[in-house]
């Protein structure tokens, strides 16, 4: 394995690690209004945060199990879709995480 390949792999691993923690926050922020999975992915992608389906749906399921999201199946455009939105606990958590994010961001801005 060449040095550049291993550096690239290392970068990818670190990048994914960095991204992983931010995804929950990003997803929760987009679910202040009700959305289903596909439109949620598109909304995030339009703002520069691509997320594939095999990452998003397990994450939504986890957040729902933690009581931060609520979901409901509903028919739209002749197809059944599962709509998600933030629960009251989720709104509170989003506020706390948002504050924490601002702090981390400000600190890192200073450091970097």
């Amino acid at each position, binding site marked *: 394995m060449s040095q550049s390949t291993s550096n690239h792999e290392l970068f990818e691993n670190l990048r994914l690690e960095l991204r992983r923690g931010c995804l929950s926050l990003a997803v929760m922020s987009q679910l202040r209004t009700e959305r289903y999975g596909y439109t949620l*992915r598109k909304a995030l992608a339009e703002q520069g945060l691509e997320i*594939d389906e*095999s990452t998003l*749906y397990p994450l939504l399921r986890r957040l729902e199990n933690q009581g931060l999201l609520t979901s409901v*199946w509903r028919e739209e455009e002749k*197809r059944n*879709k599962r709509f998600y939105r933030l629960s009251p606990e989720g709104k509170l958590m989003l506020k706390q995480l948002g504050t924490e994010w601002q702090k981390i961001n400000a600190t890192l801005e200073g450091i970097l």
Partner: protein
Amino acid sequence: MELLNRYLHAIEFWLPKRQRHDIIAELSEDLRSQIEEKESQLGRKLEDGELEAILKRCGSPLTVALRYLPQQYLIGPTLFPIYRFVLAMIVLGCVVPRVLIWLGFLIADPAHSGSMHMENLWMTVVYFAFFTTLAFAVVERSGVRFEDLNTWNPRKLPPARDPNRIPRFSTLCEIAVNTIFLVYFINLFWPRPVIDLYGATISLAPVWQFFFACFVVLAAVNTAFAAANLLRPYWTPLRASLRLLTDVLGGMLLCWLLKAHVLVGIIAPSLSATKAIVVTNLVNLGMTIALPWCIVFVIVILGVNGYRVVRLWRANRTGRPNAPALNDLSNPMVNGN
């Protein structure tokens, strides 16, 4: 859409039964939305290759399914380092003694080395490894909480050991043992063909004089080394190499002595001539039997000392400190005390 159905079916296989329908319905909806969007962009139905590209980008069925499953492990991250350590100790405890004994017999008595049943060794290792793994898996499943992880006290941690420091106590013991050995040995076994010992007359082979001289020289050299270690209680590559050399020479001499049938005869007032021959033969036989064990002992010493030499020389060559960095904490040059 046949490809899509096959893809979803393959994912479904790996999913937990209760959530299967829900997950597949949601994933299916997402993929159908993607396909529809692409078709409306192109103004035609997707070809198989284009559909295949969408599914490939989504990931292999197993990868996708695994992301929905909870993280599962036989032995969790808390127990795993302990498990690995115990497993290594058990496997080493099984393998090392048997291999050493086998080697000892192979060198000293090749005819009997086959009776060590080395073919059973691997089965023994597998059994031990299996039952160790099983025991740890049961502990993991039982959800035992290790209170020590939360209630630990730094004062109760074992003291940090410096592998390069020669303990003063062991050096003093070494000097004492070597001195006593020298005095006792020279007094009792001054090299002559016949020795009077506690009323018995022991006849020794002429080669005994050579062994005697070698053991005396080795004991004297070891005493001198120990004295040097007392003044500078740290291993250096040179000192470790000399220790390896003297230990190997001593071990080899002992092995040779056991094989040399050095006892020629015993005469004692209470011992008949026939019995004296039997005792002489028994002593020589005992020494021969002890030979493989002595070889094992020499191999162990060679391993321990050899490892130390290699470690010190390697550290010396690479320029890294040959003692752990934490030793620097007690070094006033480093911490500024």
